[in-house]
């Protein structure tokens, strides 16, 4: 039994990864041509779409802040979601007088956000609208990043702030700046303390996995919907595994 468990433990990670990959590919191929996935309503994304349209009509900007997470860390996942949202916002606001502005607290994310904006405008045949200074790094440390982002919220006529990425408790400074500017704040982070602060200070919080569902809700592609379904399945798998492990531990089978 122990040998079985130890061998499973050794290759558990590979099995888990393969299972996730298989599920994503399965749903990606099987969902082609099918109707749109029926998702539960998340208030933040409903307001998000409305605010994007209002910002375009009012001639105001969208502000997307990607946080300070590095793609070399676990925090990179939330940064990639932020880049996906940036792409969708840039497309939605492509005909706006004022293109969206994005801020970040990490060099690689800054470069990637510039690249995302450029490729988005290129795909819309509007490459002349691309301005590299619309994607900017505002600080290297968390509080410096917050201090550098606050003027962008005040000065750029922002109508909606979207904070998606890795933030710490310093996000309270950003949401407060958004509230002072009377602009809507939609915030989501992978950090637990930041989520507590977001719940208290943001207009539309994204808690837990809701952040990672942004791609599916905003129509970023079939792969996002497929990975969302994979997450739903694996969540139940993990719940069952935790319960089974707890029972085995209680029974003394697991040491």
């Amino acid at each position, binding site marked *: 039994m122990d040998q079985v468990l130890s061998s499973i433990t050794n290759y558990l990670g590979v099995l888990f990864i393969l299972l996730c990959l298989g599920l994503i590919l399965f749903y990606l191929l099987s969902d082609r041509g099918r109707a749109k996935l029926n998702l539960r309503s998340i208030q933040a994304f409903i307001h998000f779409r409305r605010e994007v349209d209002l910002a375009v009509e009012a001639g105001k900007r969208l502000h997307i802040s990607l946080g300070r997470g590095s793609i*070399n860390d676990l925090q990179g996942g939330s940064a990639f979601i932020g880049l*996906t949202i940036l792409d969708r916002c840039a497309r939605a606001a492509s005909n706006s007088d004022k293109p969206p502005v994005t801020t970040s607290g990490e060099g690689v994310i800054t470069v990637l956000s510039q690249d995302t904006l450029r490729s988005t405008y290129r795909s819309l045949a509007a490459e002349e609208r691309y301005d590299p200074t619309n994607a900017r790094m505002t600080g290297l440390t968390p*509080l410096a990043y917050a201090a550098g982002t606050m003027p962008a919220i005040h000065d750029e006529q922002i109508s909606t702030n979207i904070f998606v990425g890795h933030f710490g408790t310093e996000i309270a400074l950003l949401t407060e700046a958004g509230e002072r500017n009377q602009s809507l704040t939609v915030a989501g982070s992978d950090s637990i303390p930041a989520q507590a602060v977001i719940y208290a200070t943001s207009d539309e919080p994204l808690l837990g996995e809701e952040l*990672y569902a942004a791609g599916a809700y905003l129509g970023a592609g079939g*792969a996002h919907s497929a990975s969302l379904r994979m997450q739903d399945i694996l*969540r139940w798998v993990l719940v069952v595994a935790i319960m089974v492990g707890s029972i085995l531990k209680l029974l003394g089978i697991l040491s």
Partner: protein
Amino acid sequence: MKKILPITNAIIAVISGIFVLLGYFFPGVFGGIQSTLIGWAIILAAFALLLGIFNLAMVHWKKIASSKSGNINSMVLLISLVVTILIVSINGPAGSWSLWVFNSFQVPVEVSLLAVLAVILVYAGARLLAHRPKWNTILFLVTVLVVLLGSAPLFFIGEITPLSIVRGWLTQVPAIAGARGLLIGVALGTVATGLRILIGADRPYGG
């Protein structure tokens, strides 16, 4: 070229990601490639830091050149950046002047911002129930108050032991359980995001 480059980027990203991932599970076979690729990633991350600083300088330089409002702050930033680079370059990162700049400007500013953060959090907590009148909010506020009371002895009252015990249980059992659940969800999302990039379905690198 415009069509070849995105495909090339995607191929490089996918192959690199697969080798690093396999290096975690099969270190004997893919360990060397993994270490090499990780070394390259660290160098690129350091260079990206410099690129971010350059981007910061360019943004503020454009602000000064466009004569917009607030360009005086941009001017101060650029001057500070140049002066700090000069001082640290001359005095060294551990030099007394460098440390004086750090201790005189960086530390007090960040500490002040954190103090402002504390005020903001207290203010947000005070108007949370009026802003979002739900049962979740009441539960949230009760938890906040219990943890606060158990963190330190109340002035003029002293430490309330039961509250400390409740605080300890609250932070270690339900709060951590919820946090673990959130973290598992975050981990699943991160895995999904990473796998989307590995199979080339998601290309944040502009491909």
